[in-house]
């Protein structure tokens, strides 16, 4: 058997070995050197490891078992010191290995700015697991600060990961805008704004003068005199091919090791692959061309003909929430024309560059949904003059196709590339699906589509969906937590169908792996049980988050806030007097008027809670449930009582709704509003349920949001009478209680099930509406009560110490 020696166990050589063993497992006896003390892992997934979204084990491509199965002799952690071409041996630190064929895959080394202090401990590159671990370690210190030098792909992924770890992060970039090689100025600006919104500070045109510190890095000094304190400095300013071995061996060199289209160097028995090669003057840093090279090299080693071609590349940034895409060439030029689309409110920027009626470059920020279609046009170079007027709006506007999100994928030609990392086109995926790979896992195994950076997972799923139609079952959602293997939806169904009416029944029947759950599943299961079995199941306070257990909101110093209900935002002098008295009596440090039209008393001690409640109860007030996953407030405007524009009694309707709904538990908090006219002073159109009164009656909207997301309500129905408006509201909330996942606000739940599904049950099916209203009322016979009064009377123990040993000792 011929002897093959490979120097470097990175992604390119790893992929080459896979192709080689697949084609002919017995062609070579392989020895693999690696300077890192481990085998091949998916280096582009270090970002999720840094941010904590993945563990290192999850990104290992080849483990010991794989090397053993393929009879690879591994020499990991051992440096190669030379190549003797005359004797055909590789010289390792622990001895020589003879070769018949040699592959150099030494990759690249990070470029380190040779400024004073660059060798201090705490200055790292972002290249391998050791660097990543150093960053994770630095982030563990409270209040730790990081400086990332370099605002390119790698630097920004490092910055985002460190920020997710809780560090204060500053990115220094030498050029005028971020990612200047992939983005133009406008897109760079949007990216910078998005990063700053995430708490990452960006300084452009920043030139590093010196890194200071005694034992380790302490601060970074810029040329303009700015001093930035730093616990860690990450240099991500670029890479250069690691080619010393090739150079010393006397191979033909350019900027890297020169190879021909079969990846052969100037020595016919030596090949090179990956970031250390130069082909036709090009260097390579992204993974897609490296995988192309790996495929060609495997064939070359087996004596088969194949040639490596340089192709167009596209880039996506793997930072959650920053959607950007760039491809092709977008430099200005006299023969080039731009088409630009901006939507400042949504932070969307799209730019197409045309030359000779063909698309040559594209930059998208904020909306990259159609990027593959545009990338296809760049690669094919086809004449786009016929659709030039509507080109920037994407494939949905070419030929009047429907706005179905799947139609864009359905319209892609078979040769359109879906997975950029692995160069997998749609046709290959469709072929694999026909061959029996009918889920994501099987497709990854057979085609590698979405198996590297994973950013095309959604597209691959859409291809599955388009190809299989209804036969495609969407991938299983995540289990609730590590205590069980069931999703929220499964648990809800099983609680109903198996009639499980206690938490121990759920743990036992549904195979919980922990004795009594955890802080994630216990509150969810408690809610599902009380929603489905209001009479049989008793609410378990110990399965509630502290706020719901103590009926007050915990503050960062361990004190609580107390907020009495003000029905529909209406109060009176007696109530205000009682609130003022309570605030004085219990030395409340902060009294705050809230956005929900009531008054919050902040900074109350735990042991005072039952007493302040008793005082407020005495003045006729009850808990405002400002702490619960339940009905919060019904915000109103003054309506016909006082307002010259009011069309209905919005205050009266708000009070009625609040009196019906209060005390109910829901999957997440529920906020309502009723506005007396379309001027909408109660801001009803961003609530979970928002009613806008008009002359002809009531417009009932649902599924709005004004928190993490901002979303206008969608119209459930227009009705003529107040009673119908109330019934629709109650039925909608009960349907939400019966079906939504715990901690999904109504807008998220409606997005999952679809508004039409909700309308069919709440609006169209009158029998179902009546059932929902009755079911809600049944539950309310248990829960429409004041927990403050109950706790103040019976449960004061909960709020006081079990014993106070400081008193005894004082006697």
């Amino acid at each position, binding site marked *: 058997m011929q002897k093959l020696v490979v120097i470097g166990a990175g992604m390119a050589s790893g992929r080459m070995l896979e192709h080689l063993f697949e084609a002919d497992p017995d062609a070579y006896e392989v020895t693999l050197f690696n300077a890192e003390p481990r085998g091949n892992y998916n280096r582009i997934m270090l970002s999720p490891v840094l941010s904590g979204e993945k563990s290192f084990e999850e990104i290992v491509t080849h483990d010991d078992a794989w090397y053993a199965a393929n009879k690879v002799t591994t020499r990991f952690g051992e440096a190669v010191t030379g190549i003797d071409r005359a004797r055909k041996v590789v010289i390792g630190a622990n001895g020589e290995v003879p070769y018949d064929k040699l592959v150099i895959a030494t990759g690249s080394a990070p470029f380190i700015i040779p400024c004073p202090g660059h060798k201090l401990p705490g200055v790292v590159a972002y290249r391998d697991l050791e660097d990543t671990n150093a960053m994770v370690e630095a982030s563990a210190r409270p209040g730790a600060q990081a400086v990332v030098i370099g605002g390119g792909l790698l630097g920004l992924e490092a910055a985002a990961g460190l920020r997710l770890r809780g560090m204060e992060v500053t990115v220094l970039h030498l050029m005028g805008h971020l990612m200047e090689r992939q983005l133009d100025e406008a897109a760079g600006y949007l990216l910078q704004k998005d990063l700053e919104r995430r708490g990452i500070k960006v300084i452009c045109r920043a030139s590093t003068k010196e890194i200071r510190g005694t034992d380790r890095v302490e601060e970074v000094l810029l040329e303009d005199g700015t001093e930035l304190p730093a616990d860690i400095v990450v240099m991500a300013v670029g890479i250069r091919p690691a080619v010393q071995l090739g150079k010393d061996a006397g191979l033909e060199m350019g900027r890297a090791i020169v190879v021909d289209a079969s990846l052969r160097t100037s020595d016919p028995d030596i090949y090179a692959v990956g970031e250390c090669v130069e082909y036709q003057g090009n260097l390579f840093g992204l993974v897609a061309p490296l995988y192309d090279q790996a495929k060609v090299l495997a064939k070359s080693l087996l004596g088969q003909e194949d040639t490596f071609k340089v192709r167009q590349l596209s880039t996506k940034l793997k930072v959650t929430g920053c959607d950007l895409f760039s491809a092709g060439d977008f430099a200005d030029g006299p023969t080039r024309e731009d088409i630009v689309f901006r939507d400042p409110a949504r932070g969307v920027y799209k730019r197409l560059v045309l030359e000779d009626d063909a698309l040559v470059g594209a930059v998208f920020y904020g909306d990259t949904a159609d990027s593959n279609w545009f990338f296809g046009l760049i690669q094919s170079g086809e004449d786009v003059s016929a659709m030039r007027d509507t080109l920037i709006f994407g494939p949905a506007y070419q030929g009047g196709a429907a706005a179905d999100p799947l139609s864009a994928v359905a319209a892609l030609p078979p040769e359109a590339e879906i997975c950029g990392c692995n160069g997998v086109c749609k046709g290959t995926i469709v072929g694999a699906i026909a061959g029996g790979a009918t889920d994501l896992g099987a497709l990854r195994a057979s085609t590698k589509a979405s198996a590297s950076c994973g950013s095309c997972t959604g597209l691959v799923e859409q291809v599955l969906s388009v190809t299989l139609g209804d036969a495609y079952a969407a991938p299983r959602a995540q289990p609730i937590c590590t205590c069980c293997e069931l999703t929220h939806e499964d648990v809800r169904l099983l609680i109903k169908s198996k009639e499980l009416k206690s938490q121990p029944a759920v743990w036992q029947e549904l195979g919980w792996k922990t004795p009594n759950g955890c802080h994630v599943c*216990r509150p969810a299961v408690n809610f599902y049980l009380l929603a489905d079995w209001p009479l049989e199941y008793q609410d378990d306070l110990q399965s509630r988050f502290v706020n719901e257990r103590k009926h007050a909101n*915990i503050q960062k110093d361990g004190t609580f806030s107390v907020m009495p209900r003000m029905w529909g935002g209406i109060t009176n002098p007696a109530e205000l007097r009682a609130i003022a008295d309570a605030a004085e009596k219990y030395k409340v440090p902060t009294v705050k008027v809230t956005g929900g039209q009531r008054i919050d008393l902040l900074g109350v001690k735990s042991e005072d809670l039952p007493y302040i409640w008793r005082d407020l109860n005495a003045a006729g007030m009850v808990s405002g449930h400002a702490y619960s996953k339940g009905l919060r407030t019904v915000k109103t405007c003054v309506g016909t009582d006082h307002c010259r524009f009011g069309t209905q009694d919005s205050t009266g309707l708000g009070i009625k709704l609040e009196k019906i709904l209060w005390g109910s538990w829901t999957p997440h908090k529920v906020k309502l509003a009723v506005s007396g006219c379309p001027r909408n002073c109660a801001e009803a159109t961003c609530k979970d349920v928002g009613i806008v009164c008009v002359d002809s009656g009531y417009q009932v909207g649902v599924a709005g949001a004004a928190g993490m997301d901002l979303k206008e309500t969608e119209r459930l129905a227009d009705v003529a009478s107040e009673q119908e408006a109330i019934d629709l509201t109650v039925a909608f909330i009960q349907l939400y209680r019966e079906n939504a996942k715990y901690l999904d606000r109504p807008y998220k739940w409606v997005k999952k099930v679809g508004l039409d599904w909700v309308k069919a049950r709440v609006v169209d099916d009158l029998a179902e509406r009546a059932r929902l209203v009755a079911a809600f009322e049944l539950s309310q016979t248990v829960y429409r009560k004041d927990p403050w009064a109950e706790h103040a009377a019976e449960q004061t123990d909960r709020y006081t110490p079990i014993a106070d040993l400081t008193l005894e000792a004082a006697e």
Partner: protein
Amino acid sequence: MNWIDIGAVEDIPLRGARLLKTHAGCIAVFRTAEAEVFAASNSCPHKGGPLADGIVHGQKVTCPLHNWVFDLNTGEAQGADTGRIAVYPVQLENGRILVDLSAAEQRSAA
């Protein structure tokens, strides 16, 4: 050992906790099962969250502020978080909870 009777086991809700005030600071006394109790520092080492207000599960408690989880046997933070809370000897005798605070008092005297 200096065992102090602080109350009956039923005084603490099942899978709940009560505070114990001492000269050395507040201690949380947890009831993890019908007849199983633990005593530990009430203050989370992360941001000082009151652990007696956390959700008790298995022989662990989750801090109500930022969901750090502590093993009540060792006091060690679980998972990716690193930190430790002081734990104190505690035993049940005829339904009464006895704690030994000599370690806590030494700590405060030191």
